[in-house]
């Protein structure tokens, strides 16, 4: 007994000692007993009920008495109890010896704890290492799994879209949607059967599958009618309910569909202005969980005029039907602010059935399509030569012979075979004359001017859909020649309108916008691109062209129209096809102080008997523009003037061009 206490006096020493000679201390009597009993104890609670009770007794005593108090008498009862149990079973001693051999398997060795603590430290190091690696992985792969979700959410409110006069173009209506909570549904088959009976267009198999999940929430059907709501309500299914949602409606159907774009069932903008307003922070707000109501959101006033848009689309549709064109588009912009007042591109779609928008034939031809603009580009080329001071309105260029460049020869469509004045080049739409003027400026000057006019870069507006112009890679003199009359450079029509608008509005580049803005706002950051004199010369030329040139058909009395036609042969299989054309017509109104620029374009219009079989721009795009001007003029608040302005081009008059308004010789045929 005393010996036991002694040997336990210094556990630390004993500890070290045990580490070296584990079996060593088995020869002292007391220790032998202790050890044996422990060996016994380690198997006791599996084999012997008595021993278990002995240990159990000790256990009950142990923690309750507290570690410091029970120690002195510790070995006492233990030894006796083990003796009591032991004495009758000495015949099992040989068996116990075996158990002692196995003891290291069952016991623990405190001497190992230091090393093992270090082992655990290594384990933790690895654990934190994994966490750090994962963090670094996220930092290096910012595009990593952005998982599919945000599926089942209530459609967020969106601001109304209004036209410039406050008419509604897009708004939210409250609709009811049916949802189910699969976890709360008792009989799934019954629920599927009843729900599909009331809502026949819900797919039964799909609904059953989704109800079979353990999700908390699924949509059964979005946007149901009040009658359906009533019927579902009367089914009395537990776990099926209704939520009021916002559904986006476009009360004007296809009008301005390309501008508005559309929003999906969850209230996320997918295209057009709807997508643009999401990008302005709306999506962030609703994504961040702000519950926005219609009242919180200020309506967005667009630049469109609903009535004008209707008239434009209507006239365009009639024109396309009449001239059997494949497609067409028309647009009106305010040249002083860059606002798009009306826009239509046919064929179009109804944003209330957004699936139609995906048809590639339904693209917005004004901003997503890029085309060779044909002779309307001559306006830009002549303005460039005028602005650079290479020519003035009294200059003459030689158009007697075709222009040869290498193995290419440039002809005029209606060759005059004489020396033409600059206005004649414009009214006769002379390719040769325009090309010669562009060559005076040179390749680099031409490129620089077109870049300044925004023709070589993607036009960025509020509409997310836009196309990059197709610019020749190696731009040589031949490219300058062809591009000067509108072949060889594909731009978006809206882009060309922006340039022509700048040429006629006094020389300020106004980026087109679909949001309403004032002249002051528009001019704040608008750069000047040509001199005011050049701009006035262009207005004069366009007016002249409407009086005596190819734009005569569009000269609506009282509006003092100016215009330019453009007919480009379409490229089919890498060659210009003679029978397939792309026609454009640009008109300004009024020419003395332009407010609006009109563009109409037609894809593959056909010649008709009444046009003498001609399919050139004046006949189709030009006459459609004329109809549009006639209808839209009063709508836009511009009444026809009974008498023409007496001094329409004061700057030119000052410079000595007194012949304004006095037609010289009547130009060629209307083309």
């Amino acid at each position, binding site marked *: 007994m005393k010996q*036991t206490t002694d040997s336990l006096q210094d556990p630390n020493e004993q*500890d070290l000692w045990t580490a070296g000679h584990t079996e060593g201390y088995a020869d002292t009597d007391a220790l032998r007993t*202790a050890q044996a009993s422990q060996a016994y104890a380690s198997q006791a609670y599996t084999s012997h009920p008595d021993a278990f009770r002995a240990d159990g007794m000790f256990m009950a005593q142990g923690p309750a008495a507290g*570690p410091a108090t029970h120690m002195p008498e510790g070995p006492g009862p233990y030894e006796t109890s083990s003796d009591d149990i032991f004495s009758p079973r000495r015949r099992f001693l040989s068996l116990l010896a075996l158990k002692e051999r196995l003891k290291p*398997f069952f016991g623990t*060795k405190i001497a190992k704890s230091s090393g093992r603590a270090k082992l655990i430290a290594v384990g*933790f190091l690895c654990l*934190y290492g994994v966490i750090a690696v994962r963090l670094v992985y*996220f930092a290096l792969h910012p595009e990593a799994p952005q998982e599919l979700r945000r599926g089942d959410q209530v459609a967020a409110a969106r601001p109304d879209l209004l036209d410039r006069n406050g008419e509604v173009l897009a708004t939210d209506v409250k609709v009811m949607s049916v949802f189910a909570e699969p976890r709360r549904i008792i009989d799934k088959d019954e629920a599927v059967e009843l729900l599909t009976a009331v809502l026949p267009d819900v797919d039964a198999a799909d609904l059953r599958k989704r109800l079979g999940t353990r999700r908390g929430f699924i949509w059964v059907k979005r946007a149901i009618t009040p009658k359906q709501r009533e019927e579902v309500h009367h089914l009395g299914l537990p776990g099926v309910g209704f939520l009021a949602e916002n559904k986006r409606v476009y009360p004007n159907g296809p009008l301005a569909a390309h501008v508005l774009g559309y929003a999906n069932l969850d209230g996320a903008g997918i295209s057009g202005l709807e997508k643009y307003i999401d990008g302005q922070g709306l999506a962030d707000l609703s994504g961040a969980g702000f519950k926005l109501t219609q009242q919180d959101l200020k309506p967005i006033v667009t630049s469109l005029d609903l009535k004008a848009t209707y008239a434009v689309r209507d006239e365009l549709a009639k024109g396309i039907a009449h001239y059997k064109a494949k497609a067409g588009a028309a647009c009106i912009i305010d040249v002083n602010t860059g606002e798009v007042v009306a826009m239509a591109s046919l064929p179009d779609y109804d944003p209330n059935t957004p699936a139609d928008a995906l048809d590639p034939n339904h693209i917005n031809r004004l901003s997503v399509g890029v085309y060779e603009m044909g002779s309307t580009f001559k306006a830009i080329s002549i303005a460039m030569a005028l602005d650079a001071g290479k020519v003035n309105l009294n200059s003459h260029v030689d158009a007697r012979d075709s222009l040869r460049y290498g193995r290419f020869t440039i002809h005029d469509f209606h060759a005059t075979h004489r020396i033409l004045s600059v206005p004649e080049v414009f009214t006769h739409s002379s390719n040769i004359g325009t090309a010669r003027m562009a060559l005076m400026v040179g390749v680099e000057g031409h490129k620089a001017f077109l870049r300044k006019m925004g023709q070589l870069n993607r036009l960025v507006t509020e509409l997310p859909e836009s196309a990059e112009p197709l610019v020749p890679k190696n731009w040589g003199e031949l490219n300058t020649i062809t591009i000067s009359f509108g072949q060889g450079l594909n731009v978006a029509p809206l882009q060309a309108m922006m340039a022509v608008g700048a040429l006629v509005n006094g020389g300020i580049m106004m980026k087109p916008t679909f949001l309403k803005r004032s002249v002051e706002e528009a001019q704040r950051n608008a750069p000047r691109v040509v001199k005011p004199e050049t701009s006035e010369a262009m207005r004069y030329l366009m007016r002249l062209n409407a009086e005596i040139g190819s734009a005569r058909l569009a000269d609506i009395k009282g509006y003092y129209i100016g215009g330019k036609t453009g007919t480009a042969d379409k490229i089919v299989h890498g060659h210009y096809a003679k029978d397939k054309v792309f026609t454009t017509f640009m008109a300004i109104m009024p020419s003395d102080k332009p407010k609006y620029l009109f563009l109409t374009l037609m894809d593959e219009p056909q010649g008709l008997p009444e046009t003498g079989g001609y399919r050139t721009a004046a006949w189709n795009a030009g006459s459609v523009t004329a109809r549009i001007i006639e209808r839209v003029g009063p709508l836009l608040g511009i009444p026809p003037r009974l008498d023409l302005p007496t001094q329409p081009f004061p700057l030119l008059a000052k410079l000595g061009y007194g012949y304004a308004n006095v037609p010289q010789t009547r130009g060629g045929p209307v083309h």
Partner: protein
Amino acid sequence: MISRAERSPLANWWWTVDRWLLASVLMLMVLGLVLTMAGSPPVAERLGLSTFHFVHRQVLYLIPTLAVLFLVSFLTPRQVRRSALIIYVISMALIFAALLFGHEVKGARRWIFGIQPSEFLKPAFVILIAWAFAEGGTRRDVPGNLIALLLLPMTIIPLMLQPDFGQTLLVSLVWAALFFMAGLHWFWVIGIGGAGISGGLLAYKFVPHVRARVLKFLDPGTGGGIVDTFQVDTALDSFLSGGWFGKGPGEGTVKRILPDAHTDFIFAVTGEEFGIAACLFIVSIFAFIVLRGLLLSANNEDPFCRFAAAGLTMLFGIQSAINMAVNLHLMPAKGMTLPFISYGGSSLISLALAIGFLIAVLRKRPRSTIFLEQDGKVLA
């Protein structure tokens, strides 16, 4: 005041505590306050409270936290054992009271009198286990291993009744690690570990339910279109949108839809607003505390202190690692806070208790004191 020559109790404390450990823990508390400022306003607004409600509360909780940490670190190992026993008994009683009288919060009965007694049970349990292993290893007359074996079910069964599987897991892991440290034969370590792994593999192969759970964790899309991983996905979005240096304090947007942004998912908020660099800094502080705690424990000569320090450090380390791993979608969601950083009074004070114990048992003591104490224990 704090001089080596005059041994006032405070001076004695200052020269014997591990100041590195103390400094890192204080740094975590400061970081926690800053991050609560980032993570809690959206939650407070969602609950209709004032914007900095949780920040103010956190500051208030820090006062008792610091007091507990400071006072507990003064205890001698024997006082540590005694207070642990008392705390263990009281928290056990409170857990049972909560089971019987507590009201349900989020499907579990964990709270009573505004505290979560299981938080206080953990450090007390670790101390008792450490005592059991130390005694079992040094003295042949105390069946320490058996006590340790019995303490585990005693502790985790009430926890499982709550139910609180996160705490159960934590307590069991620390217990197993301490058992391993106590020198369990490799035969058992490998045997039990191997049995666990092969059992898991067999279960994965043959039990469809287990396989579904694992697959769901690995790829939420499988398992019949069950996509119920909003929290972790949002947390991942936070890290991704933050990048290396974050969006800047208060600039986070993902945190607005992140549930528990101020508690369990504060690490993700850190990632969004302060960037992954800041997250790595936090990871390194935790790693430093844990490694320092474990290495100091390995070098400690008193077996009880060695086990207690290792156990408390592991408690702290496993909790932090689980929280960060859940945030990073390395393991399925478990309700576990990030020590000293997440908001929460019970959690803070229980951590202060644990770290106070840790600092107390790691205090440098002359060898003679250790022996004297052991003598006293045996003789007195």
